């Protein structure tokens, strides 16, 4: 049976990551994974991140992230092959820091506090690095990029990435006038190193110099210099599994008359013996805004799987001790069953939380904002359920989720922007993936998300009721992606909406083998309709872009 390209399956064997090693050959492993889990192959799904199951992208200009199930960014943990990327000062992971060529897939799991501790209400997202290509060049109207992997084997990978974007692009504003959005430039350089020899580890180093444009109409002219180091080491000694991971962020934010610097460090350690887990997480920040501060989170967890007669049961019980909030218990309970060889059902109940970030607690009072040291952690009760079917050439997954978040922290404008535990956020949704490969010459992937997100009984900002993606490949030659994002609130407590939009991407690609190398030549157009759209209000996204791509890798077709 021909392999379906929709699934990378994997193993979960650590606390702070969903998946460490992607493996196309073990799809049944995650087929029976008893959580709300998806793997998204970005080669199929395309670069826009719209219409992917469970995912709401929130993209500005040189700043953006993805969230799960309508939650806010701080309620999610984002990793790169197990390396934590989240900045503990803001609780935010700026995924635009990563070159696009670097990421080939996304794994996600909803409701992940029993794995990640804080920042698990939405869930955990693990970005999977591209591996396998030797050299890639892209020339586009806007984005130009390059990557080189002098070492690329199953046991070791060493890759360098470069990407650049121009200083402005034009778009049509709501009065149909062509205007320029400026200060959008960036250059990104990245190094990724993974090894599974002796002690498995992965390491990342990212540098970005970029503009930091305010929203459309803003008079702000700022720029940023950023560096991110991240690592992850795992080791198995007898029956004990050990993991150490961490990151260091450096951000220099330069305005006309003002420079702010923020440096954060995070270290996460985990031990596992049989069904007992424990660990210690440390976060530190040194900032011109909130000075020097640190916090810890020590945890202890039990996990047990019981095989019952008609259902199997997986349970987690976790206790986190935070510096500021004493003991926080979280738990999850999954009931699941496999029906025959082809169908799998699960339902998962869980409690989740997130602790306030350094910025939310300690931002000094200035003209515009002030932190709030009285904040309490957010808590949520989540329910996830799903059905997966695997038939010859067809894969279907259908999931439901419901998140009820109390003590929701939001920055609100009461003369100044102040974070408060004032609201309740309820989200509920259905997401799906269907992949169908009818013949060798045709495949189709259809994913989407129906979402209801309500903050204090009002529709929550930027969360579309519907988004979906249809991606098709014809004759291994033409790839077409159509994504749709429905209307979504443009303001809190308001009927004002951002308009729905369609994006269409298309490319023609051809593989040529020459000696021991495969040359993949790709010509395409992103945003064929030249659609003017915004994900976050005031941050227009680029229009139509022609590009030419050349990738070289070792092997034979």
């Amino acid at each position, binding site marked *: 049976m021909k392999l379906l390209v929709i699934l990378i399956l994997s193993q979960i064997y650590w606390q702070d990551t969903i998946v460490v090693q992607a493996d196309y050959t073990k799809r049944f492993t995650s087929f029976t994974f008893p959580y709300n889990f998806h793997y998204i192959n970005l080669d199929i799904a395309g670069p826009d991140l719209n219409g992917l199951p469970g995912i709401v992208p929130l993209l500005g200009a040189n700043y953006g992230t993805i969230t799960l199930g309508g939650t806010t960014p701080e309620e999610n943990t984002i990793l790169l092959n197990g390396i934590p990327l989240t900045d503990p000062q803001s609780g935010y992971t700026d995924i635009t820091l990563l070159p696009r060529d670097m990421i080939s897939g996304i794994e996600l799991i909803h409701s992940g506090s029993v794995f990640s501790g804080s920042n698990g209400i939405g869930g955990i997202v693990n970005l999977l690095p591209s591996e396998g290509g030797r050299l890639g060049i892209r020339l586009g109207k806007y984005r130009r990029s390059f990557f080189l992997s002098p070492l690329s084997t199953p046991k070791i990978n060493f890759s360098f990435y470069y990407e650049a974007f121009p200083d402005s692009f034009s778009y049509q*504003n*709501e*009065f149909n*006038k062509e*205007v320029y959005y400026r200060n959008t430039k960036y250059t990104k350089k990245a190094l990724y190193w993974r090894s599974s020899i002796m002690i498995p580890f992965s390491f990342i180093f990212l540098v970005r110099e970029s503009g930091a444009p305010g*929203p*459309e*109409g*803003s*008079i702000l002219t700022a720029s940023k210099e950023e560096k991110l180091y991240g690592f992850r080491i795992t080791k198995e000694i007898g029956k004990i599994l050990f993991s150490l991971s961490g990151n260091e962020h450096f951000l220099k934010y330069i305005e*006309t*008359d*003002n420079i702010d610097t923020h440096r954060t460090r995070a270290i996460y350690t985990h031990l596992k013996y049989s069904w007992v887990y424990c660990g210690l997480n440390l976060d530190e920040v040194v900032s011109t805004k909130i000075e020097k501060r640190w916090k810890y989170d020590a945890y202890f967890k039990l996990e047990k799987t019981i095989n019952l007669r008609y259902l199997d049961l997986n349970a987690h019980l976790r206790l986190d001790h935070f510096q500021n909030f004493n003991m926080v218990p979280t738990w999850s309970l999954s009931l699941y069953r496999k029906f025959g060889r082809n169908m799998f059902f699960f339902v998962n109940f869980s409690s989740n939380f997130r602790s306030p970030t350094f910025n939310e607690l300690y931002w000094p009072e200035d*003209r515009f904002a002030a932190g709030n040291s009285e904040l309490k952690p957010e808590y949520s009760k989540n329910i996830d359920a799903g*059905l997966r*079917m695997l*038939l010859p050439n*067809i894969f*279907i997954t*259908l999931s439901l989720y419901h998140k009820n978040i109390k003590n929701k922290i*939001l920055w*609100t*404008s*009461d*003369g100044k922007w102040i974070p*408060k535990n*004032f*609201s309740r956020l309820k989200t509920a949704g*259905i997401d*799906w993936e*269907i992949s169908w490969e009818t013949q060798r010459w045709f495949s189709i992937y259809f994913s*989407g998300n*129906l979402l209801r997100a309500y903050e*204090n009984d*009002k529709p929550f900002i930027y969360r579309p*009721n*519907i988004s*979906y993606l249809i991606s098709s490949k014809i004759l291994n030659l033409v790839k077409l992606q159509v994504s749709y994002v*429905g*209307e979504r609130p*443009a*303001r*809190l*407590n*308001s*009927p*004002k*909406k951002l308009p729905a939009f369609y994006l269409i991407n298309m490319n023609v690609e051809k593989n040529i083998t020459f000696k021991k190398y495969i040359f993949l030549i790709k010509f395409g157009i992103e945003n064929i309709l030249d659609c003017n759209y915004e994900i976050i*209000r*005031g941050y227009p996204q680029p229009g139509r872009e022609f590009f030419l791509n050349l990738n070289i890798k070792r092997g034979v077709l």
Partner: protein
Amino acid sequence: MKRFIFIILLILFLTLLSCTKNEEPTAPEIKGSRVYIVNNLSETVSIYDEVKDTLFEDVIITGVTPNDIYQVGGLAYIVNSGFGGVPSIQVIDLSTNEIIKEIQLPPGSNPWAITKSANRFFVTLSARNMVYIYDSNLNLIDSIKIGKWPEGIIYYKNSIFIASSGLKPDYTYDVGYVYVLKNPDSIPIIDSIPVKTNPQDFAVSPEGEVFVLCTGDYNIQDGWILEIDPESLLIVDSLHIGGYPGDITYAQQRIFASDWFNGLLIYDLATGKDTIIPTGYGSSRLFAKDEKVYLTIFSGSEMNYLLILDVLDYTIEKKVELGVGKGAQAVLVYKEEL
């Protein structure tokens, strides 16, 4: 295979179900006396029907960050500052409560307020240090460089008064000025008067007095009200009121100033007596009509209010709930003849 097809159909059905079009707000028919409240955060206008004691929430969707509303006859003009979008002026037909026209203003110009002389509109563009001049159909005629970060603007006795706040990019303040455009309907003559820190708005009395509210710098300099003689352009009186008042209006020989933290400050010009009405945090914008003063209470996270006060005995006649997190700001009272 049948199960597969069933699931596909189910998903498609659910997809279609969710595609039901969201209903746009419909403008209700409101006659008689009513209050238009501009919600800065939710970017809408709510209308309070004084006759029926009913609030119609979010009746009009404004442009981006609406800051001012101004009435001329049966039309109202909303100034949208455009932070996060395109600045604009929207024209509302007050008989139908529908937007009948919208013009774009320069991106990033942060328009603040609007007024009208006999035949022309004047709009302060704070971030451009300019005033744009439009004819009565909102066709651009001219622009004039004015001071530093101009905000409030008012027409009185054939002169346009402009409050140049002196705001600098580092959020400190230069000396505040009031600029005066005499003869605004032909070739304006510009004059200026130095005033206290951060002049923001004006009130005029039927007796020929122009009052300018100087908010202060939110730090060392606090609030003043200065009286300007519109003929000689001299400061003829001053009143140190303290705090950081944000808006001013005049009614029945009294000056009313809203202070975000302290509430509503009232100064009786006849008796020299001052009074503070504590209204809670967030006292925002004022409007005086007949023997009432209308005050909005702004909040980004909690309930917003419209307070209606009796001008003479200062009692709060009505407290109207405007909704949570609306950011209620500019207010306008329109009394339609029935």
